[in-house]
């Protein structure tokens, strides 16, 4: 069956909603759907749900001959299948384009990043190795299959236990799981995929698109990141102009999300292990109960103004703070609500400032913009330099958190103090070494003092050519360290 056609009205509605930074299901532009992990009763079997998208992964292993080019490494095989129960347009049999793309993305993220320790899967070099096979099946397609599939594959691999093996000189004995406990597979790191969809020539980027958002999108960005913020894979699809700055900006966000996912996965694994040890029944039974559609309390719809979590948060706030109706500032991308309560903020040692919350947010946003313009590099931005009065270079500035992610709250906290130099502030400091040709007689290289820059320049870090200073500094009280030219 072919995929049902997307009407013009749906397309235009989603695009115009995005231009108002609104999504159909009430999420913010960079909000992800909640991810849930359920384990089966076998080792290496798990179901991952991302909203309505549902994916099952099963790991199995077999003894095989290794590849001749890599005789002491095991084999890792990854298969993603789009089961016809996932969507009406999924067909059994020949792999569609989407299936091929999914397979390749997962291979890039999990196999090419070499997260599985293949050498530990070797039994006898050149003869017998373990071939670990991961089968991922898409049970329901409601957008963002890559994320769900990658997490499912990774969780299944982490969950799986292979039989224990003992090799004597001639014989190889594979122990029954009842006889000897099976052993887990070693994973060096945990890479997951995080996807974004791009609209309107790169002006709107949303995280974790649903099926209909994917269909309307112009481009897709998929990052393969691990918990150590290392990029393991990158895929740019579609035909939207995606810039380097965009890739950097969303890569840092994806890294944050990957860390959350891996932490969640490890927690789920630990809980499952605990349950197994203590004898509690494990299996997919809980998975079915949680999807009870007939519950009258169902409050998560495909089309809604705000997500249930957001509504709960608002209800909590409304009950805590007894105020009149607050207006939510939904225009800013991911800022928290802007209450105009003034807040005392500490600025370095022994000084504090009474800052209007909104003003703080503006500063933060400007800072964020600065960071983003720098390509998301870690950047110690002197936050108060642009608006504050002091133009002393070696002042203590607030350090931002050591990452380029957006601040969650509008509190500025002094994490570390940046001291320009450990020495006295007025010491000689070479700001810029200006290379001059040796032939010139008129120009001399001189060392610049902090005083010169205080009097002369308005932007930090810009050295001045001594010739210029000579012109301006022809006053009787000028510095005596340089000699006037005599010719």
């Amino acid at each position, binding site marked *: 069956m072919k995929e*049902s*056609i*997307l*009407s*013009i*009205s*749906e*397309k*235009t*509605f989603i695009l*115009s*909603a995005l231009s*108002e930074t*609104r999504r*159909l299901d*009430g999420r913010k532009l960079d909000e992800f759907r909640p991810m849930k992990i359920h384990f089966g009763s076998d080792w290496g079997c798990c179901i991952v749900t991302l909203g309505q998208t549902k994916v099952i992964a099963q790991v199995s292993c077999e003894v095989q001959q290794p590849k001749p080019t890599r005789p002491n490494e095991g084999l890792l095989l990854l298969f993603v299948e789009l089961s016809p129960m996932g969507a009406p347009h999924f067909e059994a049999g020949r792999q569609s384009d989407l299936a091929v793309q999914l397979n390749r993305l997962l291979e890039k993220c999990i196999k090419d990043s070499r997260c599985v320790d293949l050498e530990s899967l070797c039994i006898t070099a050149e003869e017998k190795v373990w071939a670990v096979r991961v089968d991922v099946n898409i049970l329901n397609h409601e957008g963002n299959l890559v994320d769900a599939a990658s997490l499912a594959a990774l969780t299944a691999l982490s969950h799986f236990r292979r039989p224990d093996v003992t090799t004597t000189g001639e014989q190889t004995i594979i122990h029954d799981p009842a006889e000897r406990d099976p052993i887990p597979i070693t994973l060096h790191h945990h890479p997951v995929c995080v996807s974004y969809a791009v609209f309107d020539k790169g002006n709107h980027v949303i995280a974790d698109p649903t099926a209909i958002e994917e269909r309307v999108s112009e481009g897709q960005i998929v990052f393969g990141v691990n918990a150590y913020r290392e990029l393991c894979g990158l895929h740019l699809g579609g035909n939207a102009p995606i810039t380097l700055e965009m890739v950097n900006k969303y890569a840092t966000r994806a890294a944050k999300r990957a860390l959350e996912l891996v932490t969640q996965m490890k927690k789920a694994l630990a809980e499952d292990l605990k349950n197994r040890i203590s004898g509690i029944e494990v299996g997919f039974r809980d998975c079915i109960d949680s999807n009870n*559609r*007939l*519950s*009258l309390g*169902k*409050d998560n*719809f*495909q*089309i*809604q*103004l*705000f997500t249930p979590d957001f*509504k709960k948060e*608002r209800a909590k706030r409304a009950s805590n703070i007894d105020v009149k*109706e607050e*207006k*939510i500032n*939904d225009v800013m991308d991911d800022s928290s609500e802007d209450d105009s309560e003034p807040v005392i903020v500490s600025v370095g040692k022994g000084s504090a400032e009474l800052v209007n919350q909104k003003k703080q947010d503006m500063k933060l946003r400007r800072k964020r913009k600065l960071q983003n313009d720098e390509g998301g590099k870690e950047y110690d931005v002197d936050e108060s330099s642009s608006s504050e009065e002091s133009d002393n270079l070696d002042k203590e500035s607030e350090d931002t958190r050591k990452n380029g992610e957006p601040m969650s709250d509008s509190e500025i906290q002094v994490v570390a103090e940046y001291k320009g130099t450990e020495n006295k502030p007025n010491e000689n400091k070479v700001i810029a070494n200006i290379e001059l040709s040796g032939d010139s007689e008129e120009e001399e290289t001189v060392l610049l003092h902090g005083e010169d820059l205080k009097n002369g320049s308005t932007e930090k870090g810009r050295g001045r050519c001594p010739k210029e200073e000579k012109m301006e500094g022809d006053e009787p009280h000028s510095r005596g360290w340089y000699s006037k030219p005599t010719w």
Partner: protein
Amino acid sequence: MHITVGDVVLPGDLIGEQDELKKVVYGPGLRVHQNQIYAVTSGIFKKKPDANYYYVDTFHQKRYVPVRSEDVLGVVTNKSGDIFKVDIGSSEQASLSYLAFEGATKKNRPDIQVGDLVFAKLVVASRDMEPELVCVDSYGKKGKLGPLPEGGFVFSCSLNLVRKILKKDYPLFNVLGKDISYEISVGMNGKVWVKAATIPQTIAVCNAILAAEHKTKDEIDEMSKQILKMLAYC
């Protein structure tokens, strides 16, 4: 009948034998085969209170089976020859002739593109033939049929929800209409088109319709109050 009224039936269940003497009407979800009556859909086996009319009430069915003279909302997928091909969510695409519009002639064709929405009536809907639609009634007037105006949003919901909200005294539309002014078009194939003045209002109306699936008549008021409160924040 071995299965009594009010039982849950599955496709293939044998209900009973056809009674030749009594005049019994077998409605949707039942089929007679060699004097035996079978259920062909899953649901509750019901009987109309004052008539000998039996049927199977299917809940949460999403796949539409075309029924003659129902009004449906479809998406135009193809323009070929003299007909439009329209996707109404059934197993086959329906055909809609160019001439089945008000004031249409061979020279004067309706201005409909691929991807447009049309509200049409089924005139042919049988198991063995492809469904046919028209956008004009037997007097040649369009009434409320025809292509839908631009804008708005269309979404799918289950068939029983659509039947529920189209009932005569269902308060949902009136309650929403007190605070939001909107245009709505509901197709019996589960497709609903909503257009309001702003995007949050449109989303609010869609949300209200989806939420009404699990609510009783009395809870509609409460539910729409909550949704309108959310809307006030936007």
